């Protein structure tokens, strides 16, 4: 079926050429193409921009020629928070564009259809767009009891994921649950929850962890796939480098206070009121790779640290078990059990007494032997 191009569709909705090119520029910026001042400042190749290359035009060319990207969105052990974040995103231009540029064929939270109809629509889409659609997964996949902990339409999440992944062009795991197991995987992990990339190994999986994932990052990955037909450059945890290349700490607005040794010690002390560093209140910024500190939330309004709360490290694997949220980052994950330490100390002392007593006895015997001589 020859669908209209994205630009055609936008035109029908009354988007002018000028607005369209503005949107293209925004998309190019979001996916980190050169040609925009902030991107140049970040040290990406400027030569491209100098030689008359305009990233905006490249995006425009694609949006003018390509039709919308089919997306199938699966939800497993999740809270739909990533969907909420994306659908209520406060940066409407970008998100609207991407939502215009994709066609969501199946989404349990957003679709009007339900039951067998919805499942049928999904299967139709999977057949029609085999090898072309982008599979988005939200939520972790339970492996225990053959996946009985999460079933949809009578089938296990594992089953559904494998079936949908087979025909996908690329897979996006949005949120910490889909990426690394998230909350369901927290100890003791009763459902044996796993992230998508631990299960699907034969397809490109891009992880967009976060709790929830930053909507702009999701839209940028989709835009990148749309423009280049490929996923962006990924780090060792399959996260897009553009957004997960730096730690929160590196870009934090409270960083100067860290360097100066000015820390808030509670949530209502003088330091907290002055906006000092939250490191001592347990901020996980130094080991957390995400774009919160630069992109921020609600259209660049704020992010947790700016609002006075330490970073929880929600874009890192196993962040629920990464030590107390309000315990210093550098502290050991947990305090050793006092009885264990006590037992160890006692064992050491007893061993010392035993060896010492043996030595003393030996010494005495030797002295006696010398006297007897």
């Amino acid at each position: 079926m020859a669908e209209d191009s994205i630009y055609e569709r936008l035109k029908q909705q009354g988007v002018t050429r000028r607005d369209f090119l503005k949107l293209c520029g925004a998309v190019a910026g979001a996916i980190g193409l050169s040609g925009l001042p902030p991107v140049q400042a970040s040290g990406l190749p400027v030569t491209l921009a100098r030689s008359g290359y305009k990233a905006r035009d490249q995006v425009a060319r694609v949006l003018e020629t390509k039709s919308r990207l089919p997306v199938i969105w699966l939800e497993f052990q999740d809270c739909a928070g990533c969907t909420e974040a994306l659908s209520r995103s406060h940066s409407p231009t970008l998100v609207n564009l991407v939502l215009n540029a994709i066609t969501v064929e199946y989404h349990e939270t957003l679709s009007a259809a339900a039951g067998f109809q919805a499942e049928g629509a999904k299967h139709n889409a999977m057949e029609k767009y085999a090898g072309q659609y982008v599979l988005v997964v939200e939520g972790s996949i339970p492996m225990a009891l053959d996946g009985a902990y999460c079933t949809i339409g009578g089938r296990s999440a594992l089953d559904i994921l494998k079936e949908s992944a087979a025909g996908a062009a690329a897979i996006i795991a949005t949120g910490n649950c889909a990426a690394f197991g998230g909350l369901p995987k927290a100890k003791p992990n009763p459902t044996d929850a796993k992230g998508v990339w631990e299960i699907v190994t034969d397809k490109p999986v891009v992880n967009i962890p976060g709790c929830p994932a930053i909507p702009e990052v999701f839209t940028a990955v989709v835009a990148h796939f749309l423009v280049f037909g490929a996923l962006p450059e990924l780090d060792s945890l399959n996260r897009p480098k553009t957004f997960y290349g730096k730690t929160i700490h590196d870009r934090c607005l409270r960083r100067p206070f860290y360097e100066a040794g000015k820390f808030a010690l509670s949530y209502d002390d003088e330091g907290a009121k002055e906006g000092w560093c939250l490191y001592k209140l347990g901020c996980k910024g130094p080991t957390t790779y995400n774009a919160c500190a630069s992109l921020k939330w609600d259209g660049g309004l704020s992010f947790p640290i700016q609002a006075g709360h330490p970073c929880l490290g929600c874009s890192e694997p196993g962040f629920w078990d990464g030590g107390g949220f309000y315990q210093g980052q550098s502290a050991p994950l947990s305090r050793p059990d006092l009885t264990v330490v006590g037992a160890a100390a006692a064992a050491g002392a007893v061993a010392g007494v035993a060896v010492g007593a043996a030595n003393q006895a030996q010494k005495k015997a030797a002295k006696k032997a010398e006297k007897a001589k």
Partner: protein
Amino acid sequence: MNWTEILAFTRGPLFQVALVIFVAGMLYRLVRVLMLGWQKDKVPAKGSKAVGVVKSFLKGLLIFPFIPWVKRTFTKNPVIYLAGGLFHLSLFVVLILGAAHMLVWKSLLGFGWWTLPLPIVDWMAAVGIVAMVALFINRLFNPVLKLLTGPAEWLNLAFVFLPMVSGYMLTHHLFFRYEVMFSIHMLTVDFLLIWIPLSRISHFMFYFFSRAIHGQEFGKRAVNP
């Protein structure tokens, strides 16, 4: 296994095991030394032993570091005296007054304290590393030290040096990603904790005993039998 998991392991189970071994080992060493026994003092003392002990500590900590030239240990071996002194001062500042380390103490002890600003701690860490290098070179070329140095001494140097360098690289985000350096730092710290009871680094505890014994000898003013 990714670096986040390695970090969780070195900060979690491995650190606990290392800490338990450290506590057990140090208690063993302490009991062994205590059971060597005190020699009975059969000579009546003219002075006070307790005063001697107090004086000895005060002199060692508050007076001699500021007028080192009166001591022969300084004039004979200025490198060891200066580098050694600065090294220990650096250890104290970084381990006790550094914010990151204070949080470790806080998590273990349950209470925290005031810390120094990062740049000061940072400079002290650099001083410690430079001092360590100076001591290393000194040990390489000093003819007397050469005779005294065996594998255990080299291992001591390595085990202490690695956490210092990895910690410095960690705070400055040098060469590797933060969690990689953090993992390496924690790994070297864990090894150090296990190594301390087995080695002469345990002098951090026995130093106070030897100083006390010397102090009472100075203080009692009597003829030694």
